């Protein structure tokens, strides 16, 4: 059993009771809600006549269903309008804080939590969305929950949870040119598998993480769940504090000092013990891209597609299905695979640093005529910042579409969808069949650099081979 890790400390300080089920009742420090997974939960509260136990520890926004082209109400999509109206009514009725579309602060929950300083080290953070692991970048324990559990948090600010084991993922050395946090996370999932993290929280550490920006850490923690780990976190350090200082909900003055002291205390101790440790040399990581139908189906972009025989017997059926669905063949190179759509966005890669990186690479180039490129900022604040820096003009001059904040093409719940058997290169986090809205649509995941280099080339391209070193 792990000892003295951040996970253990936060777990222990948030334990309310041991339940008959053998689970622990855990206090939830921050509950983020959005339109998709909450209406049924509010319905449940009404059924049992309960209010929201700690409305001040709940924050709502909209992200999944909002159109990114025009956000004028009522939405064309009646169901989207209905969901939106239901959330507005519920937050009013139950007295929950809500970031409206006209607040200037709306965005994807996993972008706005850190951005507003709501997500802080040492917290437990829950949201009815599996990518809540993102908030682990702040040194907190963030995890996704289902609608019934959303109801539990609303009614009691607690959850019944099983304690996880802790696996330390140590990335040593440094990353090569053109290699980004997205490649680190895809590599971890590649190595440990999409089930490697089941039952574990991942603690990311080592020189690569010490040197990584907060936004990069968010990208990595975001995809922990794609490797099966419900939680992924990085210990808070000076980078974390520098990021947090001065944000809207961050403590100030003396309270800030007390906060920093507390956050230093809850980081894993030097004597921390882990249930397992996995090490990767940073130098061995290449830009990664997925070729199949789950995020573990990935390769270093210059590698030949893997032979079916190289997979464990039990995985081969899925691998064959993946090749068949994606219309690719083992042994071939993925470079040069024609793409129809390039998507730069989602809670994995839609922060200002992602957009800056994308703009830097696309500047002076044109999106290939055969490619439709969407650039979708993760929040209204990111959008505003990007526009102040003129990034939107760089994108539109290159022929990309510049959109309003939202989940957009990450999933087929809003008008941004693949059509027919279109093939996309996408900075999002899931390449499951049907994910981007078309049952036959094909998704390749990669970093912002890979998406931009591919958008320009019209086919999957290595960002290291662009004019300048990425």
């Amino acid at each position, binding site marked *: 059993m792990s000892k003295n890790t951040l996970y253990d400390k936060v777990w222990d*300080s*948030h334990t*309310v*009771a041991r*339940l*008959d*089920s053998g689970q622990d*009742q855990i206090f939830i*420090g921050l509950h983020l809600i959005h339109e*998709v*997974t909450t*209406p*049924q939960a509010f*319905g*449940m509260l009404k059924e*049992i006549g*309960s209010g929201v*136990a700690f409305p001040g*520890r709940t924050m709502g926004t909209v992200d999944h269903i909002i159109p990114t082209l025009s956000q004028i109400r009522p939405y064309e999509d009646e*169901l*989207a309008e209905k*969901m939106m109206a*239901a959330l507005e009514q519920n937050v009013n009725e139950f007295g929950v804080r809500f970031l409206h579309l006209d607040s200037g602060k709306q965005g994807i929950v996993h972008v706005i939590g850190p951005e507003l300083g709501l997500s*802080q080290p040492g917290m437990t953070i829950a949201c009815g969305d*599996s990518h809540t692991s993102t908030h682990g970048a702040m040194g907190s324990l963030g995890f*996704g*929950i*289902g609608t*019934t559990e959303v109801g*539990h948090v609303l*009614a*009691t*600010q*607690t*959850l019944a949870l099983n304690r996880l084991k802790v696996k330390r993922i140590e990335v040593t050395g440094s990353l090569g040119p053109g290699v980004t946090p997205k490649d680190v996370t895809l590599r971890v999932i590649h190595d440990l598998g*999409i*089930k490697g993290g*089941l*039952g574990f929280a991942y603690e990311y550490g080592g020189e690569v993480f010490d040197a990584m920006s907060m936004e990069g850490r968010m990208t990595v923690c975001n995809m922990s769940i794609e490797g*099966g780990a*419900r939680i992924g976190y990085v210990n808070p350090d000076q980078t974390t504090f520098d990021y947090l200082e001065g944000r809207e909900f961050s*403590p100030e003055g003396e*309270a*800030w000092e*007390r*906060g920093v002291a*507390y956050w230093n205390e809850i980081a894993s101790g030097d004597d921390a013990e882990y249930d397992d440790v996995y090490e990767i040399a940073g130098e061995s990581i290449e830009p990664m891209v997925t070729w199949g139908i*789950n995020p573990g189906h990935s390769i270093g972009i210059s590698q030949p597609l893997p032979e079916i025989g190289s997979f464990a017997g*039990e995985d081969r059926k*899925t691998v064959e299905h993946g090749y068949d669905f994606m219309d690719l063949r083992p042994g071939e190179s993925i470079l040069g695979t024609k793409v129809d759509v390039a998507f730069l966005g989602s809670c994995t890669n839609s922060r200002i640093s992602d957009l800056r990186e994308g703009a830097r690479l696309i500047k002076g180039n044109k999106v290939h005529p055969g490619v439709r490129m969407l650039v979708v900022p993760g929040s209204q604040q990111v959008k505003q910042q990007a526009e102040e820096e003129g990034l939107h003009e760089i994108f539109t001059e290159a022929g990309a579409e510049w959109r309003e904040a939202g989940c957009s093409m990450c*999933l*087929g*719940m809003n008008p941004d*969808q693949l059509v027919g058997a279109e093939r996309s290169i996408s900075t999002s986090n*899931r390449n499951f*069949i*049907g*994910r981007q*809205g078309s*049952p036959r649509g094909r998704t390749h995941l990669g970093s912002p650099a890979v998406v931009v280099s591919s958008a320009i080339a019209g086919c999957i391209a290595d960002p290291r081979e662009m004019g300048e070193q990425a």
Partner: protein
Amino acid sequence: MSTKRIEKIVGKAIPMPRDDIDTDRITPARFLKSITFEGIEKALFCDERENTPDHPVDNPAHKGANMMFVGKNFGSGSSREHAPQALKRFGVDVLVGISFAEIFAGNCFAIGVPLGVASAEDVNELIRQAQEEPETRFTVDIGNSTVSYGDRVVPIDIQETRKAAFLAGTWDMLANLRGNLPQVEEVAASLPYVTNFESEAQ
């Protein structure tokens, strides 16, 4: 909300042999826009069913089945509870498979759908039995952790704590959690961030 004991489920089974069936395939994302779960069963595997004329869910031989036998890593992907809800509302009261994704398993537990895990060999045998003799009536016995048909008894694993809750009828966790609200207040008061570090914690 009424809670009930779940001890035994008897009926026919739908065989779903493929591995890694994720929640996007169980209930495609575009069907998630509803604000109630009513009717969500219509979304169950709908993309696959459209493209697969003899999909097990539509096969008349499996009509009226109340359990499903599945492969490895069933329910991976998005945490949407629509997937277990669609299964339950379609009439699936229990699933037996080689392995299940964690969040999916938690969501199933929360709505009172037990999951049994068995070896690949045993699951494949169950799947074959359901395919070849779809009229077979299987019995899932939660207390004894078995699936049986004819004289055949297959052992399954049901997570101990969940099993106890099904048998005792305490799987509706909300009632349990609400019972401890005074202690919740105490823990909240001990966490300095709850006041945004404005005051010393207790």
